[in-house]
């Protein structure tokens, strides 16, 4: 398998005066089609790492290589273009645009990419059917349940056929049933389209279903566990905290 993301010596320091090291020389390689989960206590740098991979934030030092292209110092325009083409985001809260209905929300990244309205609409409808919302196409976020909105958000994240889907606590705000449903949906899409999923989560049940678990503490990867075979998790490096 080819590496889709290579992170070398990634470091992020916040604050002027009192410095806060959010990421401390992180090295990480992510393979194409992998479903990766990142766990760790609050403030451990999970979201920071995710924002770096998602091209929303820039590192203090180190490198990020996406599909062989070093994008560490890419311009804001280039980063915006890459977010649109290569990345899909699912947040803890659905963050759908409140004035737009389900189809329009899913169409949005496609319209940003400059796709023709009609084509974008057809693809959005297809995706909503895929996530089981074929009947709720014209409902606005306030007319849908939390789980339904999150499924719309999944459809939106996948609309542009991104190579990487990033989820920051994608089920953190949902009950177990909806949560499982979202995860199954992601897994199904992962198998169908061979997309790479990077999920930050507190939910160990969900983490244990992924291909690899990274544990972050104080900006460092302290533990990495890789799935081997069916349901087996093998421990590779686990430094003592």
């Amino acid at each position: 398998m080819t590496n889709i993301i290579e992170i070398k010596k990634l470091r992020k320091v916040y604050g002027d005066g009192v410095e806060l090291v959010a990421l401390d020389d992180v090295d990480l390689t992510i393979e194409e089609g992998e479903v990766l989960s990142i766990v760790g206590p609050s403030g451990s740098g999970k979201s920071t790492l995710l924002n770096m991979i998602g091209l929303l934030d820039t590192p203090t030092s180190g490198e990020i290589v996406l599909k062989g292209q070093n994008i560490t110092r890419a311009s804001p325009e280039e980063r915006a273009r890459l977010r649109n083409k290569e990345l899909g985001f699912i947040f803890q809260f659905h963050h759908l645009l409140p004035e737009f209905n389900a189809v329009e929300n899913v169409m949005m990244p496609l319209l940003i990419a400059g796709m023709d309205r009609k084509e974008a609409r057809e693809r959005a409808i297809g995706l909503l059917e895929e996530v089981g919302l074929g009947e709720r196409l014209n409902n606005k976020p306030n007319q849908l349940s939390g789980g339904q909105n999150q499924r719309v958000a999944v459809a939106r994240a996948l609309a542009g056929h991104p190579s990487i889907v990033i989820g920051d606590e994608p089920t953190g705000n949902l009950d177990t049933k909806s949560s499982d449903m979202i995860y199954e949906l992601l897994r199904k899409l992962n198998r169908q389209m061979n997309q790479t999923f990077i999920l930050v989560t507190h939910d160990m049940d969900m983490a244990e279903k992924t291909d690899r678990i990274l544990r972050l503490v104080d900006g460092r990867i302290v533990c990495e566990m890789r799935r081997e075979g069916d349901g087996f998790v093998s421990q590779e490096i686990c430094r003592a905290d």
Partner: protein
Amino acid sequence: MFELAIAERHILGNPKMVLFTVLSVALAVGVIVVLIGLTEGYRVNLIENTVENSPHVTVEPKEDEDYIYLYRTLSSIALAWPEVVASSPRLIERAAAKYKDNVEGVVFIGADPVQEDLLMGVREDMVWGDYYELRFKRFAAVVGDDLAEDLELKRGDDFRLTRQDKSIQVKAVGIIDTGTGLDSTLIYLPLDTAQDLLGEGDVVTEVGIRLSDIDAAPAIASDLNNITLYRAESWQEKSRDILEQIDTQQIYSRIFYLLIFIISGFGIANTMIMIISRRTKEIGILMAMGADQISIMKIFVLESVILGPPSALLGGGLAYLAAKLIGTVEVPAEVYITTRMTVVLDPGTFVYVAVFALLVNFLAGIYPAYKAAKLDPVEAIATE
């Protein structure tokens, strides 16, 4: 254009805020259109009034003389110009009018009724009586309507005109309403009678000239100055001060209009900043979806600009209504030159003000939109 779709939904999603923003610009547009219309109306009235109610060229005595003696010759010289329609020698002086116990200061104009009517259109302004009676009756007078009222003078009443040691009795044969402030002092007399009252012999104080082409006045006045030793002055020169004053005033007015627009611009900017601060998280999400800074800027500049046309339209409507309303209000002719204020609504003014309103909306949107585009996506998404 997803930017337009988002801008549109934002506007529809904030109806109250949008309404007040539109109203603030509409009011600015309305006020400015009306003010421009009033100034223009005043200027048009002033010129019309000057052109209608005073001679186009006035010839006055020589430098060292008080009266014009050879006025018949002067009048016939003036008539040689093809543009000259009328040339009326006039004796204008002050006197006191007494009727019963009422005394009023008056300005009398002694002139030949035929020439004076050609010059000033006197007969058009007659309320009753005929100005031409002055051709045949020596001791007759036409009296301004306000003066007649002040003196409690009725048609056919005899009253007394006194100037220094001279006094004559005349009969009111007509009442005139020129529609100007003159009506409270004006008395027309036959030229002979006026000369008797003055007691300086066969003289006049000026020769009034009316032209078929009012723009020829300065040239004819200057020709008359060159040919004769009399002092000729065109209506443009006579009202130059007031016309200049209007021009100067217009400079101040423009600054004032600009300030009104700047104030409403701040109103728009304020609304845009409010909208953006409520939408910070949404802006972050759009950025995560790949909207670049230019797109974010476009969204909010568009939002601001979209509000322009309805504001301009509403403002135009308000201005139109205000103009109609102002036109119905009577104002004292002594203060203004007419009895009604006229608002001249030139389509050009609407276009000019509307374009300016759009520009204000555009400019007011730029800064907030720029701030929105410069938001940090991570921070924007994290805002509550």
